[in-house]
């Protein structure tokens, strides 16, 4: 299995080392335990934002460390949540005295490891609040699942909460705005080809030449259902419809439309999906007032895309528009 890697066991460390060198103006890397923190360290008086999770979703999360977004990011092994001994010092490094919000994608592993770290951080005297991102409508949030997964909507939570913290909101305020994003953001994804985890040596799932996997997560998990391959318009509808339905979008509402690439699909195709998703929203009388298209929450080189919709209001729009300066998102 060909990859631009050295020893697969060093994949995450090698990549982070390069990342930290390339963005030394923005971030600093702690090599052991591994975490990435904003170059200047914590900002005194500002609520710190920490996120993290398995690696393989780059630029998430380290690419979002910087002004107006995260203060620290904690990368685990590929597709494996980080451990408490990494998360704890990241929380401490992000604490500027106003407390820390941890933004956790809803996976059993991330939840458990962050839970432990937060307990320890609180024992160490850091004020911590936590939010769980669970935007993936492919998973029913019921007694019979581990709950909805956190996927591309995480970017919106990090961006908006980061702007709120920058504005000077206190910990409760930042957590509240993060919860408001979580309540109003939904996503759904599709895979055309599976990712290949470095140490595994084969694709994470097997997909025939005429099949696609709908409702996939971002860890090479198989999706909810396998359907015959279809054209972009049809596939986009399979993604957008459950997202818009679940949000119960009403005519006249306005949204952020975010088409996210899974890593291995050309940007040009993402714009095809974007165009169709936008038309579908407009047909529902919904205005797309903000847009984002690109590979932001990836699954290694998985081919496919996800569609994320965030219901906007004046406050969320303003926080989305607020300046951000990170390796992967900047305006």
């Amino acid at each position, binding site marked *: 299995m060909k990859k631009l890697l050295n020893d697969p066991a060093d994949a995450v460390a090698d990549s982070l080392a390069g990342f930290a060198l390339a963005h030394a103006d923005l971030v600093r890397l702690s090599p052991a335990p591994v975490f990435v923190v904003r170059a200047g360290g914590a900002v005194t008086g500002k609520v710190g934002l920490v996120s993290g999770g398995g690696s393989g979703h780059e630029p998430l999360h380290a690419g979002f460390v910087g002004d107006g977004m995260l203060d620290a990011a904690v990368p685990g092994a590929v597709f494996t949540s980080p451990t*408490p001994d990494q998360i704890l010092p990241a929380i401490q490094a992000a604490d500027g005295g106003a407390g820390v919000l941890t933004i956790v994608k809803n996976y059993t592993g991330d939840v458990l490891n962050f839970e432990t770290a937060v307990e320890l951080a609180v024992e160490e005297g850091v004020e911590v609040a936590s939010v769980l991102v669970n935007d993936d409508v492919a998973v029913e949030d019921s007694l019979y*699942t581990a709950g909805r997964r956190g996927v591309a909507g995480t970017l919106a939570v990090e961006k908006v909460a980061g702007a709120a913290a920058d504005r000077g909101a206190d910990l409760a305020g930042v957590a509240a705005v993060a919860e408001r994003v979580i309540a109003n953001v939904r996503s759904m994804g599709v895979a055309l080809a599976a990712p290949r985890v470095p140490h595994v040596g084969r694709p994470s799932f097997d997909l025939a030449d005429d099949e696609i996997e709908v409702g996939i*997560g971002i860890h090479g998990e198989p999706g*909810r259902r396998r359907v015959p391959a279809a054209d972009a318009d049809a596939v986009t509808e399979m993604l957008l419809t459950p997202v818009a339905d679940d949000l119960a979008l009403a005519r006249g509402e306005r949204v952020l439309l975010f088409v996210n690439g899974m890593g291995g699909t050309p940007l040009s195709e993402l714009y095809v999906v974007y165009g169709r998703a936008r038309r579908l929203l407009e047909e529902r009388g919904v205005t797309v007032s903000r847009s984002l298209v690109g590979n932001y929450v990836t699954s290694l080189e998985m081919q496919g895309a996800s569609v994320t919709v965030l219901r906007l209001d004046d406050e969320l729009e303003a926080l989305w528009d607020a300046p951000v300066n990170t390796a992967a998102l900047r305006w």
Partner: protein
Amino acid sequence: MALDADWAERWVRRTADAIADAKDELTELDRQIGDGDHGENLDRGFKAVVARLDDAATESGPDERTVGDVLKLVATTLMSTVGGASGPLYGTAYLRAAKVSGRPQIDPPAVVAVLEAALEGVSSRGKATVGEKTMVDAWHAAVEAAEAAANDGGSEVDVLRAAAAAADTAATGTIPLVATKGRASYLGERSAGHEDPGARSTALVLGAAMAAALSGPTPADPSSAA
């Protein structure tokens, strides 16, 4: 033959070997209904545990460790190296087990208590109950079988043999189940027909415990050289 810290160390080293041997199998099980990293995760963790045991082994002086000392080292090492769901789950299992085994030697009822504590740790951390197609299924079956063997007056080896056999059967028994916890639950009905990787690794862990009890200390065992 009483089970002491040496046994605990042999248990852990044998677990590391068993996990290393089964790494690809566990990962393949996880690839079917999860994210294909369970073997890699545990192998990374248990290799780290063995490395720490090796470091400790080079220290001189008589072995004054309790069983719980060894299990606590396993717990903290797994928590800080495995990640994923299984890291905190196994970590908590060993941590709780360590708490009830802070003695130089443990007898059959204490072995049952160790397994009960591990089960309690996994289920309280992961909030899963029996039948949700997780490692809880294997731990639960092991505890029931161990209790029965202890009540029948079985030896430490008898208790562990019963636990290991029951965990193995329970792991196989997860195949037809539909997962409602962990990553496999995302698949809904599609999770049926595959064995849960965590239940399988639990069976390996308990198989190693029995084998360690059976084998006793050997001169070739570096842990007995200390």
